[in-house]
């Protein structure tokens, strides 16, 4: 080891892409150099016209961007018959693989290739991010390992089959609560051992800096497109932008284009599962406390003694006890508001959108639809213009919802019991 006598000190916390008191790089020393390399190289890639051209070409020719903006007048009327709002849906459900997740995966796998990494790992909850990562890896010819909680493997079995069909290795994680947070732990453990040749594609605006920032930038195409589409369609900016919040990437992606527009309200909808007063919810904003986990400092559901708690939501993509640090900051500063929606409300909203507009949303996105009643309550006697991020489509959730929404269908197709429900033993 040959070193200068006065080595430059690593950056102070203020320089770590922190969002107020949230964010940071709370990882073990083994990972620190990889995280530093990303923080150094990511901004260079993001300013490189060649990188941007390739990213945008793939989004256009493969993902199918720009995604449509669809007005939903029948939904609007169903929500409020007199003075109905105008509701516009940003159709991320129409993307290749069925959700916004692919925007991020294409960008990160491109970046991994640029950094000379030869193997990709990812965590997944609903399986959407896993499918999107497996897809990007198939596209770029990279080996891909996806960690998935054993609980989620069972309730999102269709996506397990999709990932495997795409050539990815799916590793069920049995430790802890066997859900998304444990899949993240397992992916981090893999990365600690494989960091020299492997890139970890984190699926949301979370984890150590620069991930929250990088994933937001890779998702901001949603907001940039929607902002231009709204201006073209209505001649003005929307009054409110609404999105569901798990880790928070689809929400940050659409918020990013409107944060500076102070006339636009930003609203995030989190999952209250069976109710915030029960132990089975994922309401990090309502019930989370400041903590350090998964490489960041942010709000998290935890015990008084600092142990992370299991989250619950009928939507596997929102079933996470934490939230990205920028959301914690946006709430702290009052720039964004957050409301909660229960399992039951989300199921009703899924049905409502399907039957009024002929669009079956993902259960995650159905939370945003259900959250519209909270948005409307902010505009008594007015008819606001609302932009809603429809982050994904519901095909993946049919298995989960059929027992809840349509018992007759179960009988018709001869299934005795919906296996999409999480076990009641809490493990």
């Amino acid at each position: 080891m040959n070193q200068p006598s006065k080595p430059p000190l690593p950056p102070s916390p203020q320089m770590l892409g922190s969002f107020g008191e949230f964010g940071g790089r709370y990882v073990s020393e083994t990972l620190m150099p990889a995280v530093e390399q990303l923080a150094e190289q990511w901004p260079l890639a993001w300013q490189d016209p060649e990188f941007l051209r390739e990213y945008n070409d793939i989004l256009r020719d493969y993902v199918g961007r720009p995604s449509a903006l669809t007005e939903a007048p029948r939904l609007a009327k169903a929500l409020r018959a007199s003075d109905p709002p105008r509701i516009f849906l940003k159709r991320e459900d129409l993307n290749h693989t069925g959700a916004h997740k692919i925007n991020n995966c294409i960008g990160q796998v491109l970046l991994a290739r640029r950094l000379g990494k030869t193997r990709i790992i990812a965590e997944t909850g609903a399986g959407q991010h896993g499918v999107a990562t497996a897809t990007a890896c198939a596209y770029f010819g990279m080996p891909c390992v996806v960690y998935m909680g054993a609980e989620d493997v069972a309730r999102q079995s269709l996506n397990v089959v999709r990932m495997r069909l795409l050539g990815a290795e799916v590793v069920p994680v049995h430790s802890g609560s066997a859900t998304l947070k444990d899949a993240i732990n397992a992916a981090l453990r893999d990365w600690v051992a494989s960091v020299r040749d492997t890139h970890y594609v984190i699926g949301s605006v979370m984890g150590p800096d620069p991930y929250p920032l990088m994933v937001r930038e890779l998702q901001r195409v949603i907001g940039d497109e929607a902002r231009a589409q709204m201006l073209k369609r209505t001649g003005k900016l929307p009054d409110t932008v609404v999105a569901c919040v798990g880790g928070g990437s689809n929400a940050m992606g659409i918020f990013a284009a409107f944060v500076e527009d102070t006339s636009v309200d930003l609203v995030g909808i989190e999952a209250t599962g069976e109710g915030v007063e029960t132990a089975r919810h994922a309401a990090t904003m309502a019930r989370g406390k400041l903590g350090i986990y998964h490489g960041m400092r942010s709000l998290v559901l935890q015990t008084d003694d600092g142990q992370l708690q299991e989250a619950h939501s009928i939507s596997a993509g929102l079933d996470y006890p934490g939230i990205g640090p920028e959301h914690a900051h946006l709430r702290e500063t009052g720039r964004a508001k957050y409301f909660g929606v229960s399992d039951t409300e989300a199921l009703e909203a899924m049905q409502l959108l399907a039957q009024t507009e002929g669009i079956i949303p993902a259960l995650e996105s159905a939370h945003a639809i259900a959250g519209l009643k909270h948005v409307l309550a902010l505009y008594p006697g007015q008819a606001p213009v609302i932009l809603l991020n429809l982050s994904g489509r519901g095909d993946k959730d049919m298995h989960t919802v059929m027992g809840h929404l349509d018992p007759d269908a179960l009988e018709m197709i001869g299934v005795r019991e919906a296996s999409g429900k999480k076990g009641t033993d809490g493990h």
Partner: protein
Amino acid sequence: MATNDASTTNRLAVTFASCQTANRAALIGYLTAFDPDEEQSFERLCAACEGGLDVLELGVPFSDPTADGPVIQEAMVRALQSGATLDGVLRLAGRLRDRFADLPIVLFGYANPLLRRPIATVVELLENAGIDGLLVVDLPPEHNVELRQAAAARGISWVGLCAPTTPPARAARVMADATGFVYGVSLTGVTGSALDTNSPELRTYIDGLCTHAQTPVAIGFGIKHAEQVRALAPMVDGIVVGSELVRASLRSSDDLRAKVRELANACRRGD
């Protein structure tokens, strides 16, 4: 910046110095507190100390231990199931302190359970429990200043972590922070992985640490067998064994005591 407190009241410094005099590396043994519950954990910890541990690394259970392999993960799950809390762990540490007055105890853990309380409160609790050093896996130099300095003010040393992936400039920063010892992670991986003590890269890595560290240097991760310990003892000041002790403790306290004795013997240099 905190300076290395080498006064004779510092149990860590005293232990490393006396091991040096005895021409042996210090055996640093890790066990998870409350595995599988408070009483059995106390009994196992006592057995390990009686077997000849030079330094005890006492693990604070955490629900999401991302730097640990399956053996320690499972130990933490068992501990949490039996109701482990930070207060409970410190109570256990206090009992060990009463029994083994000169044993240096380093608290090992993750930031979240420690930082649930204000830093001033935490370091006071640690001091009262007789804790000598602090090793927090997910508080790299960028984030450790407050806790490290508050601990130093109470005479609690900071253990700095270096990894094989750590470039020289970062290693220098880690070493500048360290007051207890520098913990060189032997391999790129989690605890309990396999380590080849004969690899030339490992030797070069250890040489680099020893050349630049201003404190004792310990090496850990993947050390299981007496032969590995014998190979490493001439090169470092301390050797950390974790998963293998947890595994031995699952068999019986006697097995654990015997395992510690065997490893402690292998720490002797010479021949």
